[in-house]
């Protein structure tokens, strides 16, 4: 009975992981035979300035994206949990970008963000504001990408939070109202604590999604300007599929996996300790 699962596990999961581990100890360009180089790839990682740059960029993205993602999803979920008109329409509308191809969304936003011909700058300039170099300024490009990624994914987290909101018993709010608690007090003292398990999931999912940042910089900026949007995944892709350094790309992949694991563990411990 376990054979199908075992075959699936061995072929789809175990083999690629083991093969990648083997790759980390080799130099391989796909075409020539693998060459054993021991731990050289690992020592190269830590002395590679672009690795540190891409790591910093990824954390910078997460630093903007996660609060923005969780905050906007929470606000929208609370609004959509009220008895407002066309609630079903809005729920579907916010979810729509999630199911649209990432490349399509990215190309659309690239046009919106265009410095000289983009809609956003036209709007800014029509109200007398200075135009913004959304994708061509090293300081602004990554926040611009974070805003786009937030817009793209917010619908998924709204649905998750909405399901959490709907499990909070109404009697709790009624009791709090009787005790004289206002709406804001209820939000911070009832809604947030009772949503904690879902919030934990949202934060962890946003973190993991954030670490996998690739399509947006690949299509919109190519990692520029001045490598300011070079994410870890884009860097790994470049090493593997532009320069065919498979061993080094695999090593970077393992380092990234380790970092994701550590960050998610920290988040989980922090939020769980906060809850208890």
């Amino acid at each position, binding site marked *: 009975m376990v054979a199908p699962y075992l075959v699936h596990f061995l072929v789809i999961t175990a083999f690629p992981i083991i093969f990648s581990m083997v790759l980390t100890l080799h130099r391989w360009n796909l075409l020539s035979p693998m060459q054993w180089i021991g731990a050289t790839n690992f020592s190269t990682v830590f002395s590679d300035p672009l690795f540190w740059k891409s790591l910093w960029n990824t954390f910078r993205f997460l630093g903007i994206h996660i609060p923005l993602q969780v905050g906007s999803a929470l606000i929208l979920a609370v609004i959509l949990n009220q008895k407002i008109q066309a609630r079903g329409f809005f729920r579907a509308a916010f979810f729509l970008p999630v199911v649209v191809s990432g490349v399509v969304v990215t190309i659309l936003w690239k046009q919106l963000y265009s410095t000289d011909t983009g809609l956003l700058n036209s709007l800014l300039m029509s109200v007398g504001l200075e135009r913004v170099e959304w994708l061509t300024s090293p300081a602004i490009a990554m926040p611009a990408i974070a805003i786009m990624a937030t817009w793209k994914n917010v619908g998924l987290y709204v649905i998750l939070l909405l399901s959490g909101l709907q499990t909070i018993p109404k009697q709790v709010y009624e009791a709090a109202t009787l005790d004289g608690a206002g709406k804001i007090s209820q939000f911070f003292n009832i809604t947030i604590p009772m949503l904690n398990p879902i919030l934990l999931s949202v934060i962890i999912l946003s973190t993991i999604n954030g670490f996998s940042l690739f399509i947006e910089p690949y299509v919109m900026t*190519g*990692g520029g300007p001045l490598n300011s949007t070079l994410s870890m995944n884009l860097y790994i892709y470049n090493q593997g599929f532009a320069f065919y350094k498979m061993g080094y790309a695999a090593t970077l992949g393992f380092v990234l996996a380790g970092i994701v694991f550590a960050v998610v563990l920290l988040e989980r411990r922090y939020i769980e300790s906060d809850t208890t």
Partner: protein
Amino acid sequence: MPHPDSRSALPLIRWISLLAGLGLVLSCRPPDRAYQLTYWCATNPFEVEFARQIVDEWNADTTRIPVIFQPVPGGQSSEEVIIAAIVGKTTPDIYSNIWPGVIEQYRDAGAVLDLSQFADFDSVLTSRVPASLRDGFRSPDGGYYQMPWKANPLMLYYNGKLLAEAGVDTLPVTYADFIALAPRLVQDFNGDGHFDTWMLDPNILPKWWERFFDFYTFLIAATDGETLMQDGVVNLDRPETRQVLNFFRENYAAGYFPRSLFQEEIFLLDKLAFKVSGPWLMRHLQRYRPDDYQHYGVTNLPRPTAGEGPVHSYGDPKNIVIFSTTPYPAEAWEFVKFMTSKANDRRLLDITDQLPVRKDLQSDPAFSSYFAERPIMRQFADQLPYTSGTDHSIYLQEIFDILSQEYDAASVYAARPVDEAVANMQRRISKLVAREHIRSAEAQD
């Protein structure tokens, strides 16, 4: 106890299972290679049409080995698809449109045939390819792993309408001429302090291949045709590299080049005075500006100083290879010769507006009517003998990535002094080249 019907069905199920298993085993066997050649061409519709016509003509002669063709399967880039095919041992026999920059990787892997093994290769090569270009296609081991086929020399297009409106009647020859023209050609229509028309729009994405269309082409022009290395030594720490970087830096700083990413073709929209491109752009201009495309013209790239002699440029060559997996190398070579015959080179011109790499392109009557009908193409044909390709290195993509990063920092964003960028280019690329030398030495041992 099994149902009687199911018991009677058991032998049938067994037979079906046996046959299915046999079918599976047979389908897993490598198929016997039919007596035919597979040819992959580029995906653009003009080249597909060219491939269709030559394959039809070849196959009409039933004494020849049959050829089947298909556009290179879809992927991020044709290079990625070819690499995947080499790894998976599913390469075709022949592939056209190969970029010479990847030949060394394929040669290193033993994936492509040395065409000089064919007895008549030298005579075919010398009778067809201009002497000035031949060495550029020869690998460091002395072999030819590619048949030079076509080129798309990059030149400077200009929008004659914009130039006329600005009263410009002299085209720029030097960097100083170019920059002096800029204040007359760039315009700020809405008075917001930003230009709405520009001189040139190099793509600012830091992708390595984009540098062929700006920095590298200008460097070739500035150095009268030299590439990045001379005799295997990196030669970037030179005044010309600084001049090219400074030229772009000055134009970006003044706003003459837009630091913007456009989705639309602004040259077609009269927002750009000049554009660096190959002959293929002319076809787009004719298609999208059918009424007034005649005002677009072509001239040489500007150089740091006027200089003497012809202006060189990047040739953007694409060639033909025969993969070493072919069971029919001699027949494949015959097909390559057929593809590059005079008649088919004329066909290539007619269908694709891309230039065959031929030394008699302007002198042979077979091509004269084409150039008589399209005088602008004659300028590209004039440029052809004065083009350069790329250096031979298995690390060429990485080398151009380094160029791209330093160019981005020094010229586009002026975030790094030009001298520092040049020193970085020289040091980082030299390191890669040294690694390649060590690798070659190890392979020989």
